[in-house]
């Protein structure tokens, strides 16, 4: 795998701090060079994305791991806001759903959002991380 095809920045959005901690660690173990930014609140993640969009597009993540069931703003609400961002953001940033849900309705619904490229079941591990990243890089 070429280093250049790897994403440089990944954002994690999950209300469970343990999950974020574990996922960050796994990404670090697998691809230590990737910058990882975890968020417990989707609204704050969205705020930062808008900030990067406005100030420095290079800061924008290549990939977001997004949970669905979250208080305050859930995954769907986040997606609804995300798709209203500029074309530059949508071109660069892809989204992978990472959730404990096994509901096929959720899988079907996620596919209606263009930026969503994959749907993963928790927990994230080295294997599915590699698979997703290869996919992302193509």
């Amino acid at each position: 795998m070429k280093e250049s095809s790897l994403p440089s920045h990944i954002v994690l959005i999950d209300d469970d701090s343990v999950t974020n901690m574990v996922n960050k660690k796994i990404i670090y173990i697998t691809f230590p060079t990737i910058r990882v930014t975890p968020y417990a609140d989707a609204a704050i993640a969205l705020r930062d994305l808008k900030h990067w969009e406005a100030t420095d597009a290079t800061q924008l993540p290549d990939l977001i791991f997004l949970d669905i069931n979250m208080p305050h703003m859930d995954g769907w609400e986040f997606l609804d806001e995300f798709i209203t961002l500029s074309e530059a953001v949508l071109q660069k940033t892809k989204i992978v759903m990472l959730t404990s849900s096994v509901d096929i309705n959720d899988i079907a619904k996620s596919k209606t959002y263009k930026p969503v490229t994959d749907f993963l079941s928790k927990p994230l591990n080295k294997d599915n991380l590699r698979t997703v990243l290869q996919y992302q890089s193509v």
Partner: protein
Amino acid sequence: MPLRNLKKPVFIGVGMFLVLTALTQFLVYFWYQSARYTEIQRLSNQANAKKERVHITLTNTLSSIRTLAFIVEEHGIPNDFDRIAEKLLKVNPLVDAIELLQGGVITHVYPVNGNEAAIGYNVLSDTIRHRGALIALRRKDFFFAGPVKLKQGGIAVIGRQPIFINGKFWGFAAVLIKLSGFVKATGIDADSNPDFRYQLSRVHPDGYEEFFLPAPAIPNEGDFVTIEVPNTEWKLYVTSLNQNGIYHHALVLCTLGLLFSTVVGIFSWYTAAQPEKLERLVDRRTSQLTMEKELSDSIINSLPGIIYIYDKDRKFFRWNRNFESVSGYTSEEVKDMHPLDFFEGEDKELLRNKIETVFQKGQADVEAYFYTRNKEKIIYYFNGNVAQFDGNTYLIGMGIDISKRVAAEKDIQNLNARLQATIERLQARNNDLQQFSYVVSHNLRNPIARILGLASIFGDDINENKVVVEKIAEATAQLDDTVKDISTIVSARNVTEKYEYISFSDEWKNVRNTLKDEIDQSKAVISVDFSEAPGITSARSYINNMLYNLVSNAIKFRTPGVPAVISVKTKIHKHGICIIVEDNGIGIDLAKNGTKIFGLYKRFGPESIPGKGIGLCLTKNQVESLHGKIEVTSTPGKGSTFTIYLPTA
């Protein structure tokens, strides 16, 4: 029958022919006779007229010979016989010659010229010709003899006047009249009258008739009249040319009469045959109609439904046997009934309209209860059609007993309703279960995923490993809680408890005790009213839990800074009782959350308010396991009302 039919017109025809023939022939015969009679009358008249004329003509000539006879009687034979004779001839031009006979011998004749042969001829000695002279002698008066062939030639009529001197026969004075001149003078020649024909005969003593005029002497056919001419031996015959005309006329009339009779006979036969033909036609049509009626009768009687026909006045005209057997009315009764007599209640008005519709639009159908004589009602499907026959408008109706179908339909409807209710219940249950399984899978997988994730980062870093193990322990505890919750919810769906009578006020006391701290802390004002429905036979712990959860939620989600006012009451409703818990709390946006509020681990309202999202889910499951249902109405900022409907056994 057919023989009679065939004979009768022929009889009439022939009879008519015969009668008319007889009548016409008789009439013709009668006419013929009368025409003949008229003709004979005419002939007689003519004959008399002619006889008179002949008589007068002869008498006129008589003066000549009388004058001569007088001269001889007074003076003897005149010396100047020729001069006297000449004068006499001048007076009477018809006379051709005058003779004087002494005894029977012609002594003088004038004119002598042409008559010389007569001198010296003794008429009395001529046995063939002396008859006329002898008759005159016997009569002692004149007599016309002849016509005779003259000694001197020619045919003439001779009138002789006997002359007596001193009572002693002396001789005759005679005149000669040529027949041709006589005929002309009397007008009995063929030329003088085209209409009549005459014949003159001299009747001899032996009866032999001598005819003098040209043929035909006597008409061979037809009528003629004869008349004797006085002072002669003559018979005058008169006939007419008209004779054949009458006969031919009669013949033509005969033929016409025969023709007429034949025509009338044939016409009569034909006319007489018409009714027979018509009758035969009618017979044939009648038998056809009878057959058709029998056929239609057997059809309408064999049909399963009831059939009836009535007119615009709603008077029954025909109906089938089924109509009587179903309705229980006799044929006599139906006759006087009105179609609406078979219906009652609302159906009566409905039928009235439908019947009107049939008469106006031609067709209508309806389902209605048909009432029999015994007031038994049977649901029927009626179909009415309008029909025109015999110049009248009728309604032809058919009714089919649909009670079985209607019963089956009702069964199906009931079944469908039950099925629909079951489907709805099952769908709701399925929805609930899906939600439940979704939440369960999420809440089970969440800690498991966390444990798996934590285990995967367990490594060399001892400090980190310590945190990982702690987190694994936490997740495992969470997993345990979830399993316990699920077990609680699932067990709530099957009532294992005994049903007993529960007094709401008693049970409320227990709940109030349990919630004592929360009530005191929140200073909530709770009013209770169980007067309408004081108790229920049910599962005690379920009722307890319902009151607990609803009231504890009402306290928990009170509007900050406003004293909680909560009302708990029971009421009676259609199928049982209901428990109503009303608050003035923060309310729920139902448009957004809908029935999710009853889902497992569904939490609404601020994060600060503790709770797992179990209470309402458990309550809903318990209500449903008691075959009840729970509803909520709410206005955000104003408050919520939860109503639990419970059926009473």
